[in-house]
């Protein structure tokens, strides 16, 4: 049905100018407002941003899970191995979901159905997409649980979700997402609900799985610390648009957008011990009433008059590093995040 080998010119997943709007009470919330990104084979791509900037909506629209109404994909295309997912109907999407693209959700505590055993839920996707007999399925489930590092998987198969801990449940969710050997796994803040040690284990697990299965991961997070540990490339999102993109080194070492600089400056670290932790003033604008021009300008310390009415273009810094801030691009006196921090503190 699909040509499974991506051609050289197309990456595995390519989102172009995606616009998802929500209609409510006569207001039009522009949750995702023209984002473009790509995920290549065997690559981990992170989308970073504050809550409410449209990360989850973009992930859900890849799988065609935006509730319509009120949501609507207004414009753009999502090309996955040479197919525009937006054009597919529900039946064809069901064959893609779980089978070629799978998803891990934020809340492992509620993402498992409380009335089924682990085995029932693990086998569900496999039974839907592949033909497999009961005995093989049982063996396959045990192997999956083994792969995600759950001890004594034979016994866990008969457990109900509430008998497992949060970390184990997230491992089961990952096993479910892996069960059909997908090409792309979307992880929507999979470690947010977990404590730090478990978070580290899960990240380690995701990395090792990715290397072994050579699949791509689209990782969505608000936590730059997590992102630095796992990402190959990073897209920074703000108010429904991508403000900066580049590989991990570029984003962390030569930050080119004031928003990303602000995010990095607000990471707690030992070197900042004893000082007041920086936070970006203000909050993410309501997607129904975004400021004109650059959406970040009311919170930006570099804002000049033209920011208020000119929508910023992507400025190319070379080697795939791009940022949507013409002000910093033009001014030679670029300031690193630490320097900026000092300025704002004084």
């Amino acid at each position, binding site marked *: 049905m699909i040509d499974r080998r991506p051609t050289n010119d197309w990456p595995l997943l390519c989102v172009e100018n995606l616009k998802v709007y929500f209609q409510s009470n006569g207001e039009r919330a522009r949750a995702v407002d023209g984002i473009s990104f790509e995920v290549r084979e065997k690559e981990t791509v992170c989308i970073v941003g504050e809550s409410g900037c449209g990360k989850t909506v973009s992930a859900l629209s890849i*799988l065609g*899970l935006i509730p319509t*109404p009120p949501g609507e994909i207004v414009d753009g295309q999502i090309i996955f191995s040479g197919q525009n997912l937006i054009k597919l109907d529900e039946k064809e*999407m*069901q*064959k*893609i*979901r*779980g*089978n070629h693209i*799978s*998803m891990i*959700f*934020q*809340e492992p505590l*509620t*993402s*498992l*159905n*409380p*009335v*089924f055993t682990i085995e029932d839920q693990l086998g*569900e*996707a496999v039974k*839907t*997409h592949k033909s497999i007999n009961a005995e093989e399925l049982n063996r396959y489930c045990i*192997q999956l649980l*083994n*792969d*995600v*590092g759950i*001890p*004594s998987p034979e*016994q866990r198969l*008969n*457990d*109900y979700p*509430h*008998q497992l801990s949060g970390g184990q449940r997230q491992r089961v*969710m990952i096993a*479910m997402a892996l069960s059909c050997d997908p090409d792309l796994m979307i992880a929507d803040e999979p470690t947010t609900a977990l404590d730090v040690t478990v978070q580290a*284990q899960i990240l*380690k*697990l995701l990395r*090792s799985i990715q290397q*072994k299965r050579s699949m791509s991961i689209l990782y969505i997070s608000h936590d730059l610390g997590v992102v630095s540990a796992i990402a190959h490339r990073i897209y920074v999102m703000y108010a429904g648009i991508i403000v900066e993109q580049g590989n991990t080194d570029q984003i962390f070492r030569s930050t080119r957008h004031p928003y990303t600089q602000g995010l990095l400056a607000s990471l707690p670290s030992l070197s900042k011990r004893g000082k007041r932790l920086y936070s970006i003033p203000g909050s993410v604008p309501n997607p129904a009433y975004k400021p004109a021009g650059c959406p970040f300008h009311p919170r930006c310390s570099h804002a000049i008059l033209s920011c208020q009415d000119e929508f910023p273009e992507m400025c190319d810094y070379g080697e795939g590093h791009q940022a949507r801030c013409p002000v910093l691009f033009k001014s030679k006196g670029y300031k690193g995040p630490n320097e900026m921090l000092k300025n704002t503190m004084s």
Partner: protein
Amino acid sequence: MNPAEETINTTDYVEAPPAPKRTRMQEFRRTLGQNRLAGLGFIIFFLFFCCAVTGLVLTSGSKPAFDPSMVRLEEKLRPPLSKPNLKALRPDQVPVLNVYLMGTDDLGRDVFSRMLQGAWVSLTVGFVAVGISVLIGIFMGGIAGYFGQHHIKTVHILFFLCLIGGTGLIIANFTVIGTVILLLCPAYIFYSQLTRHGSTEKETPALKAMLHSNAVSVDTLIMRIVDIMLCFPSFFLILTVVALLPASIYNIMIVIGLTSWMGTTRFVRAEFLSLREQDFVAAAKALGLSTFRIIFRHIMPNAVAPVLVSATIGIASAILTEAGLSFLGFGVPPPHATWGNILSNGKNFIFDAPWLTFMPGIAILIVVLSFNLFGEGLRDILNPKLRERY
């Protein structure tokens, strides 16, 4: 093939003591053992079921072992446990156990045989009526809960009104008008097929807009039907219907079923409304499962616990409704015995022969009580979280 050991340090975990492995049946038995009242309810229910089945076998056929319609006028109104007067009876009239276990009624019929025959009626009435009402209730509630936000277009409502109205008119002997109205439906289908391929610009936009406007949401439609149904005093509705239809046990079951599904619909809708927003439903969608499978395999088991509890109570009330109908003389036609008409016969002799009212009354009480207790227990069994408490 054990890649877990390479990458994940499994000693990070404290190994949990393995939970004893149980099958569903063992789990069921364990819970019933722990929850005494539910266990008792289940045992009584099981005994009742056995009684009803053996009663059906023993009281039917051309020469039944316990003949519920054998009239012995010489032996009328004998108290329970009395011996038959062998001199007055022909040999084939002597009861099987040589004793009237529950006495005899005003025609000298053995009350024990009649109770046995009535048990089967009560059982089938309870189960069939509640089965019908639960099926309708789950279906309507599921649709209202899951697809509630979808809208029905005006044209579809008109379509169904034409369909129902036309059929009604034909049945009521207005053949010509009925046929014309009925023919509007295929005409519309034909027309819509035509306009789908051709250009739709020619027609008047105002009419088209009116016909294709969203008239009412599915949720509103179904829940208002439920409200309308709840407004009827259902016992009198049943009385009317039973008076119009030929008296038969099956009509009664169907009528009871068709007038008692509203509660279940409301339960199921409420459950679906909250469950449909749960993360595990989103996760199931993301795994590529079909809507049908999500509704019936993932949401339904979560929603069904309160439904089953209300169903066991529904069985009890269906038995009571049947008894009430029989008591009023609208129920199962004589000479077939039911607990209700034994009771209603007995009220004439309540001072001379109190066992005629006590026996069926106590039987109904015990069965209804056992159903309610069992229903409570069933809820715990179906919910894995509640199960852990015992």
